[in-house]
């Protein structure tokens, strides 16, 4: 179920009431587990079985890894976990993509091959829960955690409903210790959790869906040449939409978990105020970037084998990061653009490492705006349905269309996008060296009340159109 649905409101009220009424910690965890599977099963009940199968297998494999007596055995059990998880992900998410690309490759060799089209439903959130589960066997293998003896606790760690389908990617090592003992009731934590949920829903329903989605959809689905203003507006709209949509989900998840006494890490830290791409990835989808760092980049050798190998490793990581988002080459191009920018940044840092002028405010702001511009450019490939559409939009943005582009957006939508984008960038720059908690702590109580009320009333005004979160498809 969606956070922005009436079903979730009722579900959440019932779960919260029962959770804080039950005295036994074991009973509360059983309740959360049942609630999480109900939360997931309302999309497609059979896929809950797939979720459980993945979880149970990794639970068993984690125990086998820990019990293995030789490094070879440990590695073999880890490979079994990697194979089972990634093949499941590959089958559902990349099956048709692989077949189509095999067809294209064979065609290059002059071999005509017509693959069957696999009529598959992508289990919602499979990319997220696969990583939740996989982190456990990887951490047991690395010796950074001991295997849990409780299948129930591990199943809850993987399926905990606030973060189940669209992150943050919560590692078992972060969650399992919190399942060891019950949190004490705390009204401040509970209410702060509710405020975070309101903020997340406001970002999703008001800012992403109401203010920005229409312009982005119009521009990215248009088949003709676009006026430069419209192309830029559509790209800025998507840039804001994907932030508010995804960060909104993460904020809801963090808030919902807090109301239940669980602490989840930040997944976003004002990313559009990033100066450079390494800074961007410290601020955007942090749970994915740290996952890729710990379980891919470092095992590949990180930067230990010299600059060239480090650059290659970065490109591999971002290639896979792009592909994680979706089975299409456009996502790969998005990842490769980020990889190239990371490599370029390392080169520039090496060249200008002693240049004090790079720390000046004006330079930082310019670099930040430059980073944002390239991030937006990369979003074109992320959002566009194909390369033709992406190139049409890029050409329109740089004013290189052979004919005059069409003005397709109402002035009102352009104004909406510009106002929200300006507010988004200003907020990120103002908050880039602090945290929301710190800002709220020094805000007068009447202002917190007013802002919270406005957000709630705005959410009511949107009348809950129930649009799915963008990251559900990943």
């Amino acid at each position, binding site marked *: 179920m969606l956070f922005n*649905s009436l*079903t979730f409101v*009722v579900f959440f009220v019932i779960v919260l009431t029962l959770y804080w009424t039950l005295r036994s910690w074991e009973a509360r965890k059983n309740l959360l587990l049942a609630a999480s599977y109900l939360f997931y*099963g*309302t999309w497609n009940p059979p896929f809950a079985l797939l979720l459980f199968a993945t979880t149970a297998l990794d639970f068993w494999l984690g125990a086998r890894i820990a019990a293995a007596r030789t490094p070879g055995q440990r590695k073999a059990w880890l490979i079994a976990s990697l194979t089972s998880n990634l093949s499941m992900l590959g089958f559902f998410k990349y099956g048709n993509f692989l077949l189509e690309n095999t067809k294209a490759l064979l065609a290059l060799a002059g071999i005509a091959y017509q693959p069957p089209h696999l009529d598959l439903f992508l289990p919602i959130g499979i990319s997220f829960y696969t990583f939740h589960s996989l982190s456990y066997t990887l951490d047991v293998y*690395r010796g*950074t*955690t001991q295997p849990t003896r409780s299948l129930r606790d591990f199943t809850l760690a993987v399926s905990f409903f606030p973060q189940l389908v669209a992150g943050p990617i919560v590692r078992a*090592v*972060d969650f*399992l*210790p919190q399942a*060891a003992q019950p*949190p004490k009731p705390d*009204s*401040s934590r509970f209410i702060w959790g*509710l405020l975070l949920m309101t903020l997340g829903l406001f970002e999703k329903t008001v800012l992403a*869906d*109401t*203010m920005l989605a229409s312009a982005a959809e119009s521009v990215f689905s248009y088949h*003709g*040449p676009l006026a430069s203003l419209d192309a830029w507006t559509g790209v800025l709209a998507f840039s804001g939409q994907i932030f508010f949509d995804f960060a909104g989900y993460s904020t809801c998840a*963090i808030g919902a978990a*807090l109301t239940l006494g669980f602490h*989840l890490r930040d997944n976003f830290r004002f990313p559009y105020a990033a100066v450079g*791409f*390494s800074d961007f*990835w*410290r601020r955007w989808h942090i749970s994915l970037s*740290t996952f*890729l760092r*710990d379980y891919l*980049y*470092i095992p590949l050798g*990180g930067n*230990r084998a010299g600059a060239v190998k*480090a650059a290659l490793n970065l490109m591999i990581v971002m290639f896979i990061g792009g592909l994680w988002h979706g089975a299409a080459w456009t996502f790969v191009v998005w990842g490769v653009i980020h990889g190239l920018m990371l490599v370029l940044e390392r080169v520039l840092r090496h060249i200008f490492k002693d240049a004090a002028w790079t720390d000046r405010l004006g330079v930082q702001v310019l670099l930040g705006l430059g980073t944002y511009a390239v991030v937006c450019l990369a979003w074109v490939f992320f959002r566009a349905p194909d390369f033709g559409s992406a190139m049409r939009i890029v050409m329109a943005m740089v004013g290189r269309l052979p*004919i005059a582009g*069409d*003005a397709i*957006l*109402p*002035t*009102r939508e352009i104004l909406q996008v510009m106002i929200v984008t300006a507010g988004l960038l200003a907020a990120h720059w103002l908050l880039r060296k602090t*945290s929301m*908690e*710190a800002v*709220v*702590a020094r805000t007068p*109580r009447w202002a*917190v*009340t007013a802002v*919270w009320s406005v957000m*709630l*009333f705005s959410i*009511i*005004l949107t*009348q809950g*159109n*129930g649009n799915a979160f963008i990251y559900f498809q990943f």
Partner: protein
Amino acid sequence: MHSSTSNSEFDLTTAPAPLPSPNARRRPAPRAAQSDLDFTRVIPALPWKGIVAATALLTLAATVAWEINARTHGYAPSLNDTPDLWAEQRNRVEPNSIVLVGTSRMLFNADLDVLEEALGQRPVQLALAGSSPFPVLADLAQDPSFHGTLILDIVPAMFLAPAGSPPMAVSQKALRRRDEWNYSQKWSHRMGMDLEEHVAFLKQEDLSLAQLLKQLPIPNRANAQVGPPLPPYFYTVDRDRRGRMVEQAAILGSPLQQRVAHGWLPLFTMPPPPSFIPPEQFGKMMGEAIEQRFKDTAQHIATLRARGVKIVFVRMPVQGPLVQKEEAIVPLAFGWGRLVQENGVPAIDTNTVPELNSFILPEWSHLSAPDSVEFTKRLVPHLQRALGAVEVPAAANAAAPRPTSG
């Protein structure tokens, strides 16, 4: 921070440490014996109980004020005509159902109570406002369990609307909802209906934040290719999707009636061809698409008839400037005439039947709620005759009713 990061300058992912807050309390999280991570969230130190109480009161006050405002402006509690409501009706279609398919004219003009009494069972209302009914026709043709009765309202300009156009999108959105409808959406829909039946401001097509923003009087660029606005809220639906024009819209000369009536004119005006396709090529593409639509329609009708489905085409009343507008987009003889003749199904053009074309359509396109009851009563004998008629093969189209100008 994770110890394994120490081998790395992989600074793209080195998360900064949690930022300290002078006024924030740090709450101890349960510590893990194995975990070296500490992600206890900071809770800002504020009087939260007072804040949440004040927020609840303010939000409640604003909501009540907004409800009063909506009722003052003529809105009353009624259901939103959403894809969910349509999907629910689609799921009610049984093998022998009588199904109404079409545009808003079928939705407004066909009274379900009258039809139920006359035809022996309550029809399922699948007509969609602003839609091309073609995708719904195709959906029923592809449903092997359906072999009942299909009453299809045809507005040629809407029925023949090309793929990708708004009328096609309306039907496809509803069908997609039905195909992908999950338990959560069904439960939300049912709870939403209970709310909508009591709260007047829950009008997604008129009073949602997105719609309110659209009403801002901001002029567009001179060269902007922006579609005309849709008419305002002027009808209600019940749980069976029986549509009724609201009273104010039926009063000739009322502001709402004027807004709705004049709203149709730009909507029934052919948009300019796209700038990026040469006009001749575009005209050829449209011509081919329309021919294909005729062929696909014939195929679906044949499939349905082969299963024993009884089919009647109905052309609902239309008046005033809309007659010329529709004729300019798709001439009657070309659209309605070909559909009737090529498919050889019984057809009723209500515009040519004296007892059916004598009603005043307040906004030229739909009947008022009281008139829709009387209209349906008068339509029933024609429907009964058509449904009882022996259907003729398409080739023998001379036997089919001849279209006449409305």
